[in-house]
């Protein structure tokens, strides 16, 4: 039977198990949206296409499935670019479908035409312009496969109007054959053995895990490995939740705003076991002085991540979970002798660092400390929330003080650092898990970048809880100005601000505010009890800084502590 491109589109999505699309229609997509009500698929109408891309991304991070968004040509498509780049930097599987002007008009500067395939080439894992409806099913199949396999990432598929309304025979391809795409998923056993030999010799080993542990669902294996090697574990921002925070071997996050003990451990380790992490500059600081006395083992599915900026001694290309399972097998077959005794001095040293400079702040009774708000959110949600963050100080405090224990519970723009990400990402996660508590830890700056999606949350009964740590500044930039630019607070003051409580009410959400520390708990309780989306406006200490802090370009052990 012959189907139109629009029908094929929905048949393919059904075959891929897609349950929800985040989208916004437009001229060239009218045939697609006309077809939509005939199919059993949920569509969440966004108010700006950037929101659609972030929602698909938040949905993907929280579920591990591929997130899908659908937007029109031209500005609809270009509005997704920030969302696509965000997903690309953090290796998040999303498929973005964009409408396009009819093939005959492409290149003619037609109304609402943009070369979105050209524009997104450097920020997608791969992208397609479908020129012939006969290729549509194959391309959609490939798009989903590419998005979630290997190192995951965003895929864009551009759909010209005539492709959408032309008919062809439909057959969903069972097999995929792409000559140039064969990711290495199985870790090489020889390299695993070399790694284990090095681990056996190490006195002060540590594990440095990243987002790869989350995307390969390897948190269980990571915990086992840490425990069986008696090896302390740090993670990157992207890896938080990959190892349980209350654990005795937990070092906290490392890097620019990492814990004292995690960064000191990196400075002193003799074997760094990097798992699904990419040695980002916010993690390494000054490259020459990063893990100066360590041999480095690096497990990653993407060969380009290995030896990109830090020379690796034992590279292992493969899926993190596969590599960890193989390592665990070796540990089982030939355990390390006297493990407790061998590790004791190292673990004692780490304990000393932990006691010297723990993460800390002092909550007095006048001004609310933002860290206190995050700790209260942790406490009152019993650590079971899904936490989205915006970007800046709010993000770092969420990372430091919400003690993540489960993978896929932190949704944050780690690589691109996209302000405005948190609210739509929270909405995406809430769409997947209507019964879970989803919180967006926000700043008064970032929340205004995608605030329009509040109405999307209200319309779709997605009761996300937004906690604004309102310091009346673009706080992280202000912090840098305070520390490195003699307090020249140029263009960072946000004192002229909307009334967030009234704004919430205008959207039909609940608005709450706390001025005093003793109001924090009751505001959070009321927000959690409400069936509605909520904005909590916490008026916090305006000049609070995130510590520890490693100044840009300094060695990781050179931390500002207060």
């Amino acid at each position, binding site marked *: 039977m012959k189907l139109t491109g629009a029908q094929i589109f929905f048949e393919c999505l059904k075959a891929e198990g897609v349950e929800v699309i985040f989208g916004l229609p437009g001229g060239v997509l009218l045939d697609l949206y006309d077809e939509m009500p005939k199919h059993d698929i949920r569509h969440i109408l966004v108010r700006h296409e950037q929101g659609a891309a972030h929602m698909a991304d938040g949905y993907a991070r929280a579920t591990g499935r591929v997130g899908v968004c659908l937007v029109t040509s031209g500005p609809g498509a270009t509005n997704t670019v920030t969302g696509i780049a965000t997903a690309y930097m953090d290796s998040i599987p999303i498929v973005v479908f964009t409408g396009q002007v009819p093939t005959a008009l492409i290149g003619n500067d037609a109304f609402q035409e943009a070369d979105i395939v050209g524009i997104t*080439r*450097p920020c997608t*894992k791969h992208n397609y312009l479908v020129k012939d409806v006969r290729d549509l099913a194959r391309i959609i199949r490939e798009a989903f496969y590419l998005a979630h396999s290997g190192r995951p990432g965003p895929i864009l598929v551009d759909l010209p109007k005539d492709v959408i309304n032309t008919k062809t025979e439909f057959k969903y391809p069972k097999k995929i054959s792409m000559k*140039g795409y064969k990711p290495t998923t199985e870790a090489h056993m020889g390299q695993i053995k070399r790694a284990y030999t090095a681990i056996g010799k190490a006195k002060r080993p540590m594990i440095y895990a990243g987002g790869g542990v989350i995307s390969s669902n390897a948190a269980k294996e990571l915990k086992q490995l840490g425990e069986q090697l008696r090896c302390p574990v740090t993670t990157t921002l992207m890896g938080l939740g990959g190892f349980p925070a209350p654990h005795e071997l937990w070092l906290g996050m490392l890097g620019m705003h990492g814990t004292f003990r995690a960064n000191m451990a990196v400075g002193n380790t003799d074997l760094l076991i990097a798992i699904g992490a990419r040695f980002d500059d916010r993690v390494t600081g000054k490259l020459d002085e990063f893990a100066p006395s360590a041999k480095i083992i690096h497990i990653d599915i993407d060969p380009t991540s290995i030896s990109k900026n830090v020379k690796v001694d034992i590279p292992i290309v493969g899926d993190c979970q596969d590599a960890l399972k193989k390592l665990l097998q070796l540990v089982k077959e030939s355990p390390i002798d006297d493990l407790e005794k061998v590790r004791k001095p190292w673990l004692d040293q780490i304990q000393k660092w932990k006691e010297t400079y723990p993460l800390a702040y002092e909550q007095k009774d006048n001004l609310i400390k933002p860290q206190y708000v995050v700790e209260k959110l942790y406490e009152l949600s019993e650590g079971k929330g899904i936490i989205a963050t915006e970007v800046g100080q709010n993000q770092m405090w969420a990372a430091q003080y919400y003690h993540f224990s489960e993978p896929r519970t932190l949704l944050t723009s780690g690589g691109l650092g996209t302000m405005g990400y948190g609210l739509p990402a929270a909405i995406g996660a809430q769409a997947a898990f209507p019964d879970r508590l989803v919180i967006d830890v926000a700043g008064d700056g970032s929340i205004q970048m995608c605030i329009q999606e509040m109405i999307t949350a209200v319309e779709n009964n997605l009761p996300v809880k937004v906690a604004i740590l309102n310091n009346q500044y673009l706080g992280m930039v202000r912090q840098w100005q305070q520390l490195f630019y003699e307090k020249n607070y140029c263009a960072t003051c946000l004192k002229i601000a909307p009334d967030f409580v009234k704004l919430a009410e205008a959207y039909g959400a609940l608005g709450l505010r706390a001025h005093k520390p003793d109001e924090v708990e009751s505001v959070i309780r009321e927000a959690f009890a409400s069936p509605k989306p909520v904005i909590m406006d916490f008026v916090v200490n305006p000049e609070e800084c995130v510590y520890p802090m490693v100044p840009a370009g300094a060695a990781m052990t050179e931390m500002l502590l207060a």
Partner: protein
Amino acid sequence: MRHILGVLVENQPGVLSRVAGLFSGRGFNIESLTVAETLDKGVSHITLVTTGDEMIMEQIVKHLNKLVNVIKVIDFREVKFVDREMALIKVKAEADTRAEALRITNIFRGKVVDVCQHSFTIEVTGDEGKIQAILDLLSQLGIVEVVRTGKVAIARGRKNSTKR
């Protein structure tokens, strides 16, 4: 260091842009690049000359392999190979220099492919050193214009190195 890479790509629109974009986006250099179909019409072969130390070359090769449309990368650092480029050289040829221009062309086994009153256009093929040598000699006569193809390279021996 300069290196030659052979890149087999799927013959699809936008592939060249992906390869070129990779180099510009990551700050790698392209000294020359040639591309044409192979015997298999669905596959094109790019010969690419680039520069970089060991670490950069490793990254370039890995990043090329990572592109979905790239089928294979041949690193000519690892195999013996023959490389050639072609130049079309328009050289002044007045009554007193025509004989010399022809003589140089013959020595380099070049061909005159266009003649007019005041100039010859010479086609010459060879490795980089040979092209440079003829350019040096002809420059004494006065070169009007040069167009070069950039290198193409193929592995020595009987094996088809582009087989996958």
